[in-house]
Each structure stands twice: as structure tokens, then as C-alpha cells.
């Protein structure tokens, strides 16, 4: 059959609207699960362990290397103006307001988000989610809500750890490897970082956590409904890739929007 471009456009538009509606209902049902009994506290602890504790090493190494690079690059740039004393301020503000929340969310999306998406996708294609429905067990309360709460607890905490490790990396690069004085690094940071900056970073980390867990669990849950995903194991792999890409792009877009609105 010859394809009609206008019909294709209409179909795509309808698909996008349907998908948005489906994902919005998914989000509402995930939050409704908080108020449904019995609450799965053990599962919540397991998910915090998986998303939070399990991501500690990757967050530590990413933060350390980012801090070291920021320290060296910052020193190189500031040295040209004789402003090496501002290194502490530059490194800490960059990490707390931008790189900390963004890189933490991207790392969590790549490590835990992909795993959550694949897990739910496999559960869907092997009828495990249908089995929950048939036992009159709410799959949102049972599977999705603990992941949402765990992400909202873990990602902001990981962001704080990222900031601290990154600032320490910048200190090592600036003070130990270059000739910035320890006092000016610490004082620059103390004098320039305000509560507003820290609040902005934390708000961002909550929003990014929600975006990552929402997109990754939602894509896995709806693996059969995703257009072009195919069937079986292939559909899970494609949807997992799509979830990581989509959540990463969403984090970057929302980073700009939040910065523009809250700065």
C-alpha cells in the first residue's frame, strides 16, 4: 500500500498524544501506589540499595574525574586573568548548580534506569505483570511505586555526594597539583555559594530523579505499546536503549528550563 505522508503525520501525532496520555496516567498511578496497602517497605530498601548504594562507585569516579578536570581547566582559564583565587568559587558553583545534578542523573539513567526498564520489559513480555493483574495485585503499588520513592530518595543524596567528591577533586587539582592556596580555594567557595544555589541543585536533582525513573519504568511497563519496538527480547533491548536516550535528553532539556526559571 502506498504511504500517504499526511496520514503518516496524523498517525504519528495520534501516537504521540496517546503515549503522553498513557505516561501521564502511569505517573499518577505510581504516586497513587504510595497510599495503597500493604506498603512494600522491604522492596523500597532493596531499591534504595540498588539505585543508591549500587551507584556509589560510578558516582564517586565520575565526580572525582570531573572535579579534577574542572580544577585544572579552571586554573588554566583563571590564571590568564590572575584570578586563580576564584578557583574554589568556580568549581563549587559549577558542580552544585549544574554538573552535580546533571551528571548524577545521567549516570543513574545509564546504570539503574536501564536495568529498571529491562526488568519491567521482561516482566511484561513474560506475562508476569499480567499475572499480578490477574491476582488482583496492583502492579503499580507492587513494582513501580517502590522504584519511584527509591529514586527520589537516592538521586538527591548521590548528587550531594557527587558535589562533595567533585569539590574535593577540584581542591586536589588546584591546591596539590597547581599553586592555588588552600585558604583562597575554601574561602572562594564559602563566600560565593549561597543557600539559593544549593537549593537549586537539590530541586534539579529531584526533578531529574523523577524524569529518569518515570521514563525508564514507563517504557519498560509499556514495552508492547511502543511503536517500532518489535517483539520479544528485541523489543526489550530497543525500548531500554530508547528509555536511556529519552531520559538523558529530558534531563538536559529540563536542566536548561529549571536554570532559566529558578536562577
Amino acid at each position, binding site marked *: *500500500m502506498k504511504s500517504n505522508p499526511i*496520514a503518516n503525520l496524523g498517525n504519528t501525532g495520534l501516537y504521540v498524544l496517546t503515549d503522553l496520555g498513557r505516561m501521564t496516567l502511569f505517573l499518577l498511578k505510581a504516586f497513587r501506589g504510595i497510599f495503597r496497602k*500493604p506498603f512494600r517497605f522491604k522492596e523500597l530498601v532493596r531499591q534504595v540499595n540498588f539505585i543508591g548504594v549500587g551507584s556509589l562507585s560510578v558516582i564517586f569516579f565520575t565526580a572525582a574525574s570531573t572535579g579534577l578536570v574542572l580544577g585544572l581547566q579552571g586554573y588554566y582559564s583563571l590564571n590568564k586573568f590572575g584570578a586563580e583565587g576564584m578557583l574554589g568559587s568556580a568549581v563549587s558553583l559549577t558542580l552544585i548548580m549544574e554538573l552535580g545534578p546533571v551528571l548524577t542523573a545521567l549516570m543513574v539513567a545509564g546504570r539503574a534506569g536501564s536495568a529498571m526498564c529491562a526488568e519491567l520489559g*521482561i*516482566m511484561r513480555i*513474560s*506475562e*508476569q505483570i*499480567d*499475572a499480578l*493483574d*490477574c*491476582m*488482583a*495485585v496492583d502492579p503499580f503499588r*507492587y513494582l513501580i511505586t517502590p522504584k519511584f520513592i527509591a529514586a527520589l530518595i537516592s538521586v538527591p543524596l548521590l548528587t550531594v555526594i557527587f558535589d562533595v567528591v567533585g569539590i574535593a577533586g577540584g581542591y586536589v587539582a588546584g591546591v596539590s597539583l597547581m599553586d592555588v592556596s588552600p585558604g583562597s580555594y575554601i574561602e572562594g567557595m564559602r563566600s560565593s555559594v549561597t543557600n539559593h544555589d544549593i537549593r537549586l541543585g537539590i530541586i534539579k536533582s529531584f526533578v531529574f530523579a523523577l524524569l529518569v525513573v518515570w521514563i525508564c519504568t514507563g517504557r519498560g511497563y509499556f514495552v508492547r505499546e511502543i511503536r517500532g519496538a518489535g517483539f520479544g527480547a528485541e523489543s526489550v533491548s530497543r525500548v531500554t536503549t530508547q528509555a536511556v536516550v529519552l531520559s538523558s535528553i529530558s534531563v538536559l532539556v529540563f536542566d536548561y528550563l529549571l536554570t532559566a526559571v529558578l536562577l
Partner: protein
Amino acid sequence: MTSAIEFIDVSKTFAKKDGTVQTVLDSVSFSIPAGKTTVIAGGSGSGKSVTLKIVLGLMRANSGRVLVQGNDVTGAKGKELEALRTQFGVLFQGSALFDSLTVFENVALPLRERTKKTEEEIGNQVHASLSQFELDGHEDKYPAQLSGGMKKRVGLARAMQLKPAIMLFDEPTTGLDPVMAQEIYQLFAKTQSEFGFTSVIVSHDIPKIFNLADRVIILNRGSMDVFSSPEEIQWSEKPHIREFVKMTMGDIYQSHLVEI
């Protein structure tokens, strides 16, 4: 005879990618008698699984009414849908056991989630059930460590925990060798005589399943034919039924086919 499930003029269509509409159920009506075994058979894409999904409220019909135990459950949602589902036990094609849970945890799941029983009571009931389904000593194994037949038995044990009034079996012997399939059917028969539930079996394994059937429904391109006994099928003069008998039942009934 009272009906456990009744379909009244139920239709279900799906939109295809090329914009056309595929009719899977075309205004079908049938009833499934309580306490008996009904087999739903038909070729691939004939609407067997769709019928089960409509019964369970996993899919909605485009038109018509569905009655379960005399109650109209068409379009049921929320608490009503939950109440409907508690009447059913389902054994899925692939058993649908939870990969990350042990055999014990899989069987205990409906009790933990749907009842207020203590862990001790749950433990006693699950162990008794595992003994009944010859799964002693496998409590701590994960589904990946079980054979296909054992997975089916765990799935059946799990489905039986809340003592359902109606058991739905979706292609229950897919992937099993003939000996294991026979064992599973014997287990179904034994369990049904013990618990007295209504059985609905969707299957391709026609010759073996017909020994269990009290009533047979054959789906074909949106329509259906209902037979009050398996033997009645071989006397049908409808070409698609005769073709179905030849294709699926081979030697068992072919020799009795009446030439038209």
C-alpha cells in the same frame, strides 16, 4: 445448568497498521457451565487468548456483555474489577512465575498480598500446597532452576492459593513433551475433582485435551461453534470444522470422519 461465564454478542476488533480493521470476535455468544471443563480451541489468531483477556478484564470488548457468575462485568474497573479477578485463577502459557522470587515466595505471593494471614499460616498453607503438587524440596529454588513441567505445577499451586471458582488455563502444555503434558492434564483433572472449580482451557493440544473436555468451543475467523461434547465435533458437516479435525486430531478421530 448454571453458567460460570457468559458472552452475549461480544465483538472485538483491532486496528491494523495499514488502517484496516481486523475482527477477532464477531458478535459471539456462548456460555461456560459451572463446575465443568470447557475447551476453547482454534487456529493462531482466532481469538482464543483475546477471549480469556476479555473475561479477566485485561482487554475490553467493543460491544456486547460479559457475565461472570451471573454478574454483568462488562467494563468493570477499580474495586469491581479487583473483586472480579479474585474469582479467577490463571495458569499462563509460560507459567508467568516471578523470576526474582523462589518457588515458596511465588506460591505465597497471593496470600501475602490478598489476605491477612500470618506468616506462620501462610507457611503452613504453602508447604501443604507444595506437597500436594509434588514440589517438596524445591521451595528455595528459583524459576530458572525448574523444568517446564515443574514451572507449570508451581503456577498451578500459586493459582490455587485463593481457592478460585474459575480456573483459566492458557495453552497449559506449550513447550512440554507428550509424557509431561499427559501428567499435567492428569494433575488438572485431579485438582478439579478435588476443588470443584470451573475449568476453561485454551489449547492447541487437541487430542489430549479432549479427554478432559465436557464442552468444546472452536473459534474461527471471528465466529464460533459450540459442541456439547468432544465426540460431537467429528459429526460436524461444516468444512472449517472438518479441516480443523483433520489438521489437529490426526489418527484419533480421522478414521471416524464421515465422508460428505
